[in-house]
């Protein structure tokens, strides 16, 4: 441990409670969307973090915040970033947790040290705090990305329900743009459901698909072909007038697939194929 970090460690040890108090004041001054409920939590967290930092600096590894000595401090920061990311705080608000430590720490270093040692100690402190700040931002970013990825996955699952309309008839209402990734999920869930329910007819409804280009058409054909291989017939329904025009203009050949304008028509056709029909109940007198 060099003299600068030694001085830093000494100041942190001697004035721990004062620095903590000043730091909390600094944090409170930062405009934040967090309300008072979290104040106690912030206090505990700040105290733990200050302890962890002291521990790490005493461990003699002030330079290397990726090292083992900093693992506790890193864990605390990751946890903080994750919880703030979930609560919708901005990255700068989160990073201010670490950066607001600068002011109180520098104040106490200035009081403790002579001018010649002060510059070095300040430099050492700046390095440590900057690195921790960057680490916080990175951790914040990472937890945000995790949230986004999870939401993407959920969206994928949410948007591809396979519903059983009738005994032996499945419906697959597609909503949103179809890309390769989604088609894969759609195809898999449809085929699984065909096996599970023993259905022989599947209606793919594309009312909610905004545009149909050659790629989307190809994806649809693949799904139809896979369902046929398993022994189920597909009917594509919900083709809007503009989409019918686009399909023909693009030269996409859908002649191998039964198509219907509306889900109701497709359902009637499916019932007919199964040998069932719906009729009006006799009027009660």
């Amino acid at each position, binding site marked *: 441990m060099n003299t600068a970090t030694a001085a830093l460690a000494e100041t942190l040890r001697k004035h721990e409670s004062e620095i903590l108090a000043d730091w909390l004041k600094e944090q409170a001054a930062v405009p934040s969307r967090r309300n008072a409920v979290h104040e106690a939590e912030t206090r505990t967290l700040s105290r733990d973090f200050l302890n962890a930092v002291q521990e790490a600096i005493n461990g003699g590894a002030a330079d290397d915040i990726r090292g083992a000595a900093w693992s506790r401090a890193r864990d605390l920061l990751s946890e903080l970033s994750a919880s703030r990311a979930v609560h919708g705080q901005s990255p700068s608000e989160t990073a201010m947790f670490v950066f607001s430590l600068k002011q109180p720490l520098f104040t106490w270093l200035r009081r403790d040290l002579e001018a010649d040692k002060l510059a070095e100690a300040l430099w050492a402190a700046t390095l440590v705090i900057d690195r921790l700040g960057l680490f916080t931002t990175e951790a914040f970013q990472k937890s945000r990305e995790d949230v986004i990825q999870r939401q993407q996955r959920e969206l994928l699952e949410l948007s591809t329900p396979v519903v059983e309309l009738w005994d032996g008839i499945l419906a697959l209402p597609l909503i949103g743009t179809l890309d390769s990734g989604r088609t*894969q999920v759609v*195809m*898999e869930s449809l*085929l*699984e459901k*065909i*096996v599970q329910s*023993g*259905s*022989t007819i599947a209606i793919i409804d594309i009312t909610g698909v905004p545009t149909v280009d050659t790629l989307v058409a190809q994806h649809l054909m*693949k799904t139809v*072909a*896979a*369902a*046929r*291989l*398993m*022994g*189920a017939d597909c009917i594509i329904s919900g083709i809007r007038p503009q989409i019918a025009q686009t399909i023909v203009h693009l030269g996409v050949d859908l002649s191998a697939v039964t198509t219907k304008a509306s889900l109701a028509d497709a359902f009637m056709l499916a019932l007919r194929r199964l040998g069932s029909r719906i009729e009006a109940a006799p009027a009660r007198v």
Partner: protein
Amino acid sequence: MERIPILRMGRFLLVTIQVDMHDQLALTLQDDLTQRIVADRARGVLMDISSLDVVDSFIGRMISNIAAMSRVLDAQTVVVGMQPAVAITLVELGLDLAGVRTALNVERGMALLQQSEA
């Protein structure tokens, strides 16, 4: 040598693939089946592939070929019980087995054969 059994049910032949299909086995099956169709004067072939969970392009083509050969010998082929993963693989390989009839399970496949016979 390992062989896939071919069972006779009335005028139909039932082929149940219960083992991992490898290339030689598929070729033997093709031989055996065509001979049996002629010998038994079969009108239909029901191929149950529900235990098959891995296919490659060769096996896909074999299934398609066997169906085509049966048709030449005037026997309908129905492939039944294809697993979702197998169906997806075949479609991705561009093998949509055009001309092969399919059904969900043996029971439905049999009904399909009887229907076309009637």
